[in-house]
C-alpha cells in the first residue's frame, strides 16, 4: 500500500473501552470522504477485559484487511500495556498515542507477573519513532463527566494526526451516526476536548 492518502491506524486497548466504536466512526468518516476502507477487529473469545485490537486501513484501494507489522502509520493505544504489546506494528517514524492508564491483568494481582514500568514501554517506542505521545485521556474524559467518553476523546486527539481532509461537519456526522442522542452532546464535547488537547502538539 503505497498509494496517496494511505493510512493504517491500529487501535488497541482492553475490552470495554469503546475501541471498536471509535474505529467504526473513523471508518465511516473515511468512507464518506470517498476513500476505500477495510477494518478488522479483535476476534475470538472477546470477553470483557481481554486484549482488543482494531485494524483500520484507509487508502485509494485497500486489499488486505490486516495491517502488516512495521507498517501502521498510527498506533492509538487506550492502555499502556496494550501499547507495548503492539509496538512491532508501528512503522519507523510512525505516530504512537498512548493513554496514560494501567489496567493490570489478573496475573499481576495474583503476583505471578509484573506490570512494565512507563520507561520500558516508552523506551520500546523510542527505538521506532520520535513521535510518541503519552496523554492523560482517562483523566480528561472523567473531567468531562463520564470516563466512558475516553474513546471519543482519543478519536479527537487522533484526528489532528490524520493526513486526510475531513471537515468538522463530517466528524460530527460520523459521531452522531454511532451514538444515541442523549449522550451525543457529551461525546461531541469529548471529541473537541481531544482535538484541543492535541492542538499544542508539534506534529
Amino acid at each position, binding site marked *: 500500500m503505497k498509494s496517496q492518502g494511505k493510512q493504517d491506524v491500529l487501535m488497541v486497548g482492553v475490552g470495554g473501552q469503546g475501541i471498536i466504536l471509535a474505529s467504526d466512526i473513523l471508518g465511516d468518516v473515511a468512507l464518506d470522504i470517498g476513500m476505500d476502507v*477495510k477494518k478488522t477487529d479483535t476476534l475470538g473469545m472477546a470477553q470483557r477485559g481481554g486484549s482488543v485490537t482494531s485494524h483500520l486501513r484507509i487508502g485509494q484501494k485497500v486489499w488486505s484487511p490486516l495491517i502488516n*507489522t512495521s507498517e501502521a502509520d498510527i498506533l492509538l493505544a487506550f492502555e499502556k500495556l496494550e501499547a507495548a504489546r503492539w509496538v512491532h506494528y508501528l512503522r519507523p517514524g510512525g505516530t504512537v498515542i498512548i493513554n496514560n492508564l494501567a489496567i493490570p491483568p489478573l496475573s499481576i494481582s495474583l503476583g505471578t507477573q509484573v506490570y512494565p514500568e512507563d520507561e520500558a514501554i516508552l523506551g520500546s517506542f523510542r527505538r521506532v519513532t520520535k513521535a510518541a505521545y503519552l496523554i492523560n485521556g482517562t483523566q480528561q474524559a472523567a473531567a468531562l463527566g463520564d470516563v466512558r467518553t475516553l474513546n471519543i476523546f482519543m478519536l479527537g486527539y487522533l484526528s489532528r494526526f490524520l493526513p486526510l481532509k475531513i471537515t468538522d461537519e463530517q466528524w460530527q456526522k460520523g459521531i452522531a451516526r454511532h451514538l444515541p442522542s442523549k449522550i451525543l452532546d457529551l461525546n461531541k464535547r469529548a471529541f473537541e476536548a481531544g482535538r484541543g488537547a492535541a492542538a499544542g502538539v508539534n506534529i
Partner: protein
Amino acid sequence: MSKSRKLLSGNEAIALGAYHAGVRVATAYPGTPSTEILENMAAFKDLYAEWSTNEKVAMEVGLGASYAGVRTLVSMKHVGLNVAADPFMAAATTGVHGGLVVVSADDPGIHSSQGEQDNRHFARLGRVPMIEPADSQEAYDFMAAAYQISEKYDTPVLFRITTRVAHSKSVVEVDMDVLRAERSKFFHHHVEKYVMLPGHARLRVPHMHSRMEELTALAEKTPLNIIIEGDSRTGIVSSGVGYEYAREAFPGASFLKLGLIYPLPPKLIKRFADKVNKLFVVEELDPFLEENIKAMGIKIEGKQHIPRHGELNTGAVRHAAVKAEIIPPADAAVEVVATGNLPGRPPLLCAGCPHTGAFFVLSTIGKRGKVLDARGRSEKESGLIITGDIGCYTLATYPPLRAMDTTACMGASIGQAIGLVKAGVSSKVAAVIGDSTFMHSGITGIIDAVYNDAKITVIILDNGTTAMTGHQDHPGSGKSAQGVSTQKVDIVKIVEGAGVKNLQVVDSFDIKSVRSAIRSALDSEQLSVVIVRGRCAVTNKVRKNKRRVDQDACNDCGVCLMIGCQAIQKKDGRVYIEAGTCMGDACGICQQICPKKAIGTEGKAA
C-alpha cells in the same frame, strides 16, 4: 438504479445478499464467526428466521423449506457442519426445490473454536458446488449466483467464508432497488427424489455425478472465476481472503482468482498455467486447490512454502514467496521484533458472572490449586474430574479457578463423564454444561446417563442465554430469533422427564447453597443433576451497592482473588475492588467467601 455505498462486515453482506436474492427462510445455531448472519436475517420482517436447537435441526428445517420451493439460508460455523453433516449429505443426495445455500464459516487460526478444519473438503464429500467470497462486496454479490446455481443444478450450495471475511468490514455497493421475487410455495410429491430408500438413493447418486460434470463446465465460463493479466513470470491461483493478501504481496503478478472453488475448471487453469512461467497457489489451511490442480497434471507450488495451519497475512505470503524464489529477500518487509515477556491478558469470566461461584466451589472441593501444576497437569488423579463443555464457562479452565479437565465439542461433557466412570476411574466425575449447549446436544447425554445408570454429577449452568456468542435466544429463553414470545422449554422438566431422580436447582449467587448442592450431588450414590441458575452479568445493567474492602479488617489472605473476578485487584500488596467493574448486589460472591468478613458495601463490612 440507485446504489448505496456501505461499510459492511462479510456476515452483514451475506445476509443482505441473501435477502435481496429472495430468501424466505433462514436458520442457524449461533457460532463464531457465523452468528451475525442469522442476527441480520432476523431483522428482516418479511421472512422467517429461527435459532434452531442445533445445526442438525437448522439444516433439516432448511431442507424442508427448500422442498416447499422457497429460497433458504442455513448458516453455521465450521464445526457446526460436523453436527449437521448427516442432513447435509442427505440434502446433497435429494437435491433441492427452492435454492438452498449453506454457509460454512471456517476459523483458521482458531480465534474462537475447539479446532481448525478446512470445510472445503465437504464440497468434495457431498459432491456439491462451493463458492468462496474474498470480501464483503463478493459476499453480497455471490449470494445471488449461489441461489441460481442451487436451483439450476438441483443441489445445495456450500458458501464458504473464513473468520477474516466474516468479521472484516469493507465497502459494499448495494443495489437499493432490488425487488424480492415472490415465489409460489408448494411441495411436489416425488418419493424417488425425497424418500431416500436404498432403491431411490441409488437413483440419485448418478445425478450427483452428472451435476458435477455440468458444474465443471459452468466453472470454465462463470464470471465468479476471473483472470487478472499481469507479469507473465508469476501466476497466482487464489481465492477468499488469501487473494487479498496475495494482491498486496504481488502487485504486478498475474492472477487466477476463483470464486467457484469446487468443482474446479481444468481448461481455465491450464490456459492460465500456459501463460505464466511459474504457478503459485495462495490458500489458507489445507492444500485443497493445490492438490486438485496437481491431480490435473499441472505443475504448481504452494504448501511447501506456505503454512498449513493458522491464518495467513500479507507478511506470511511475502515470506513464502521469498522461499519459493518468486520475490527476492530484499523485497520482504523488515520486521520489528515484538516486546517479549509482557503479561498476557487472557479473556476471563466477567465480574458478576453467575458461573464463578459454581467453579469456585468445584475448584475448592477438588483442591485443584494444590493438585494441578501451573500448566494444569497432574500425574495423580485429583479426586474430582471435571469434564467441560463449550461456552464462556470454558474460561474457568484458566487459573485461578482451574476447574475444567476436558472440552471437546458441543455436549461432550456428559458423554465423557459417563465414559470416565464406566472405565473405572477412582475419582468422582462431574460434567459441566451451559443451558444453550444442553439444549443443543446435552439432552441425549442425560438420557444415556439415565439409561445406563451412570453415577455422575451433571452441573447445568443456566444463565438463560447463549452468552459466549453474544446473547442469542434459545429454546429455554422464551423468545424467538425475531423477538416473538414463545413457550419456554423447561430444563427441569426435561431432566425429570428423562428419569433423573436426584435433581437440585440453586441460585448461582448463593454460595452456601451452591456448595451444599454440589457436595451432596457428588456424595450421592446415584446420577445427580444440579442446575445452577443466575442471570448473565452482561445483560444485567443494575449495579447497586458496589463491594469494597475494609482495609483494616483485611489480612490479605488472597481467598477473594481465587474466584478470578476482574474487579478484585491487588496493588502495593493490598487487595481492592475496582468500583467501575464490580456488579454490587447482583453478585456479592466475594463478600460471602471472605474469611475475615472484610468485604461489604460502602460504610458497612459484612
